[in-house]
């Protein structure tokens, strides 16, 4: 199954497929550790459809839904097996 990061629910993990963003955002994401093949986990979401709190490797990142849309992911089955890529 293929979807965008903004559609993941808190507690769900996924593998990054590819990142489709304009250059500045792509650079920032890559510097924060977002690369294809890496595993990430959505920890929580802020109230009122707020930003996501995402853990990737040992880094915690907050990202708006609109920007999370740029990240294409393959969700993992629902048990959270938090290993690092």
């Amino acid at each position, binding site marked *: 199954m293929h979807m965008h990061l903004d559609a993941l629910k808190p507690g769900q993990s996924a593998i990054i497929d590819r990142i489709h*963003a304009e250059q500045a955002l792509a*650079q920032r994401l890559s510097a924060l550790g977002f690369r294809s093949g890496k595993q990430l986990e959505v920890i929580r979401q802020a*109230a009122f459809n707020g930003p996501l709190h995402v853990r990737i490797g040992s880094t915690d990142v907050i990202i708006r839904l609109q920007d999370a849309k740029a990240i294409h992911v393959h969700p993992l089955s629902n048990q959270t097996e*938090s290993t690092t890529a």
Partner: protein
Amino acid sequence: MKRVALLGMPNTGKSTLFNRLSGASARVGNWPGITVDLMSAKILLGGHIAELVDLPGLYDLHGFSDDEHVVRHFLSHHAIDLVLIILNSAQIDRQLSLALQIRALGLPAVLLLNMEDEAKRAGITIDAQAMSKQLGMPVRTISAKYGQGCPEALQLAAQTLLQQPNLVTPETIAGKLEMDNAIEQEMHQIIDRTVHFPLQLNHSLTDRLDKVLLHPWLGLPLFLLSVFMLFQFIFTVGAPLQEGMAWLFDSLRSEALEPALASLPTWLNGLLLDGLYTGFSTVAAFVPIIVLFFLVMSMVEDSGYLSRAAFLMDTLMAKMGLDGRGFVMMLMGFGCNVPALMGTRVMRSRPMRLLTMLTIPLSLCSARLQVFLFIIAILFPPSQAALVLFSLYMVSFATIFITAILFKGKFASREPFVLELPPYRFPTPQQIWMRGWQEVKHFLARATKFIVIGVVMVWLLTHLPTTAVPASPETWAGSIGRFFSPVLDPIGIDTELAIALIFGFVAKEIVVGSLAVIYGLQGDALSHQIASNIDWVQGMSFMLFTLIYTPCLSTIATLKSESKSSGFMWLSLAWSLGLAWVISFLFYQSARALGY
């Protein structure tokens, strides 16, 4: 002289290390890009003096932010003998790329792995020797916070300086600063071979705190509650200290200064005692509270809680055309508007930056805090003091919201919001102390300069011409007050308060001192006089006006230099003055209409 550049990602403790190595005290914050001014220091390195330059924190050399641009520009325009790279051990898997980028430039470098303690707690172990071999670069683990490994790191740097003279010119570097994809692959290889990660990262403490503090519904109320408690703490501890200081200055005057200066001519005696001394001592009495305020602020800033506040507030900020970072800048503005304005450099989109800069001057800064503490103590019983102060902070937020909502159409932008959430950190007492002391020094320097000039001016205005009774309507000050009375009467501000407001335009630190000079009184006598002259409605109106109108000349100058636009500066000036008047007017007239 050898030049050594300190380079690292945001939130790696780079500023802490710089402070430790330089002995100076730079600001340390948990906010990416807070070190925007390039600081440098002379340090002793292997028996020679070397220049240590603190470059802005950056994620990689090829990024597009202002800070990344500054670093690239620096590396391709200035000769450097050695780069000290500082990385966060707990996040080594993604930070190592920076070291490889520097190595690819051919610059001699030493890699310092900071926050060893945090990495250990997370169960990460790093084989520094193996990493050094793989990288072909000296590697050393350190703790910038506690100082472990720092002397050894300096020794390593001195050795490297001796053994590896830099043969790369800035021009070559400029050429090499092209993207190199091979870096990534090699990074993964080295990480795989030298770093052991536990299967489940032990984030447990930060996770447990986050579960409560970032709770979807409880998070924001908890944040506001903790801010309120901090103010309550500052008030409870600070007020008695302030009274003690006031008493001390009072006694010094009556016991020592008055007898000593009795032989001087009346006018000189008046200028020195009622002008300079009264003005200065009234302000100086606030130093303990300011010290407390900055100690608390620096603790919050270094703790990692501010980035959480950005997370909690982002949805609301988005509705105003801003983002969570703007909220953090406003909170920093509570300390001083000037660094908060400079901090907006982390925003790449100009409209968003301008909109944020338009709202920051409405943050209730420490200089205004001091005016409010003074007025509140006079006009409100202690049981209500913290509540009144808190409501002023809420008004500060409200004006920020109004401003952003009204202007977001004019400054529309679409900037990505992606931000790192650092783990919670507990700043060491020394770190808090250094930071707090730096701020206090800054406050005192500003305050002294402005206050001495300001109170002398106020004294002259209230005592000239010599034929007039001091501070009466016949003095120059009286004329100025009459001139403004059509505008200021409807908001309940009398001549005395008007003079204070005019001088408050230069800097809010002057306001309290000039009130003391205007009334020619200090300590309890001054409080009684003000309490009998104005009621709480007038006092509140005065505080509202003080809160909203232009904070100080430094802020205006910073607005102009950061926006590079006089038009923007005038817009900010006119808007805040107009808003201040309208809100004071609404408050004053409705309170009176309700019979208060």
